[in-house]
């Protein structure tokens, strides 16, 4: 099984965690990204991930390998959803197991931070007012660039 996957179905978290189990590991850190009911003052009803899968998978694997190399953790896996998601659905899960906890936290954070800025994945939020909007990457907002709103009418 590929350590980085794109899934069109709901993520099976129990099965995901199984893949990280390792008797030599004392620490496991997991990050879940959940579909939140609001964003920048707007009430979100659901959202949609568009994924360019060939590149998302190869780039995702690169990120996992980098994390293992840089932090010396034993295992690292991630799954990202594509398609339509409802509130509270798991959009992405990252799991890292290692001998000690410090590097497990660092590696998990590295993976999700990199995934958000490097993977060809786009998120469209559907709002209570009937609009839909492509959401911009965290990096832009954090860097304080002009807010680049890419508005598009909802198609559904």
């Amino acid at each position: 099984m590929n350590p980085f996957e794109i899934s069109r179905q709901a993520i099976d978290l129990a099965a995901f965690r199984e893949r990280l189990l390792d008797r030599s590991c004392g620490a496991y850190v997991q990050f879940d990204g959940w579909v939140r009911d609001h964003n920048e003052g707007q009430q979100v009803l659901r959202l949609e991930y568009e994924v360019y899968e060939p590149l998302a998978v190869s780039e995702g694997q690169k990120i996992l390998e980098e994390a293992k190399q840089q932090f010396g953790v034993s295992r690292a896996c991630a799954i990202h959803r594509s398609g339509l998601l409802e509130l509270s659905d798991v959009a992405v899960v990252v799991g890292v197991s290692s001998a000690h906890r410090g590097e497990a936290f660092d590696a998990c954070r590295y993976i999700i931070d990199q995934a958000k800025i490097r993977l060809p994945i786009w998120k469209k939020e559907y709002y209570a007012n009937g609009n839909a909007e492509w959401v911009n990457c965290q990096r832009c907002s954090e860097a304080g660039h002009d807010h680049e709103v890419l508005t598009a009418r909802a198609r559904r």
Partner: protein
Amino acid sequence: MNLTVRYFAAFRELTGVEAETVNTDASSPSDLFNECAARHTGLQKFTSSMVAVNDEMAGWDSALSDGDEVLFFPPVAGG
């Protein structure tokens, strides 16, 4: 040379096009994007837009060859 251009997410919606074949002398993805933007009203390169050539991430100033598939990515937002 002939290139295939593919638009994703907001770019696809702004152009109304998923993929198109273009005949161009553009020397880089950056030049090519400007040509495409001249044809498609509303298409503009946002900060942190990315480009891939033949399924590999590429620089906006990299070289292009006949037959390349050029992917224009609006700012990504995974997770």
